[in-house]
């Protein structure tokens, strides 16, 4: 609660991911940084590579697409379609990780301002736990499989 620097990620249900973070800026600026391609390119990479594509057609039914070339040389791409747009307040869009085209999520971002600070809440709604889990795993250095292998070793050792 005291630290606004790190994102908080929780898994409220088997199909959801909830990400929250407070920013020291009014929400119209956070919204601008979130919806302007040149600005998105400067933060979305998360220091894991370079964003080569940030397309945002900000209207209901409009599409977005982000492509990043990760430091390892491989490309990761995401795209979706805007479903609901309330400027400076709320964005609803679909999201597809192009390596897993069957797993379409619905993302709801809300921007809530208080005292010149903005709380961003991003709810990712998947249609199955498997898709949700794969989403959390995307971009991980050590995959979920490594974790599962480790677990299996622990489980086997207890038999």
């Amino acid at each position, binding site marked *: 609660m005291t630290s606004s620097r790190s994102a908080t990620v929780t898994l409220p249900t088997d199909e959801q991911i909830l990400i929250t973070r407070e920013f020291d800026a009014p929400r119209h*600026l956070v919204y601008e940084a979130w919806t302007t391609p040149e600005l998105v390119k400067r933060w979305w990479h998360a220091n894991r590579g370079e964003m080569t594509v940030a397309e945002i057609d900000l209207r209901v039914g409009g599409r977005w697409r982000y492509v990043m070339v990760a430091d390892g040389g491989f490309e990761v791409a995401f795209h979706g379609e805007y479903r609901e747009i309330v400027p400076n307040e709320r964005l609803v869009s679909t999201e597809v990780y192009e390596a897993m085209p069957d797993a379409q999520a619905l993302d709801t971002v809300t921007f809530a301002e208080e005292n010149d600070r903005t709380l961003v809440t991003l709810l990712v709604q998947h249609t199955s*736990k498997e898709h949700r889990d794969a989403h959390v*795993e995307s*971009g991980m250095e050590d995959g979920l499989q490594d*974790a*599962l292998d480790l677990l299996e070793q622990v489980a086997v050792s*207890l038999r």
Partner: protein
Amino acid sequence: MIAAVPRAATTADAFNAVAEPRRRQILDVLAGGERPVNDLVRALGLAQPQVSKHLRVLRAVGAVDVRGDGRQRLYRLNGRALKPIHDWVKDYERTWSERFEQLDVVLEGLKKTEGGGGGDE
């Protein structure tokens, strides 16, 4: 509602095992310390066979350990088995934290532009 009969996959890994809300509840109770099954039955308000069924799943993936103490069996949390789940979410959280740190930098720039430019639409 999730059926009381576990799917085949539930014992395959801890991620599936803890996906069931009742099993998460058991882990929450055990986080407070070692407990006999009767305590869990009381805490969850379920019949003992159901609680035992959940405990079997949790034991199969190593999320809880059990030991005999006289006539009762005591269950306890095995934090080591749950660590991969914690790490799994933490890695994802780290990505977003770094993403948002970059966004902080972008916002500082926007604040300066707005403050200096003034009256900008």
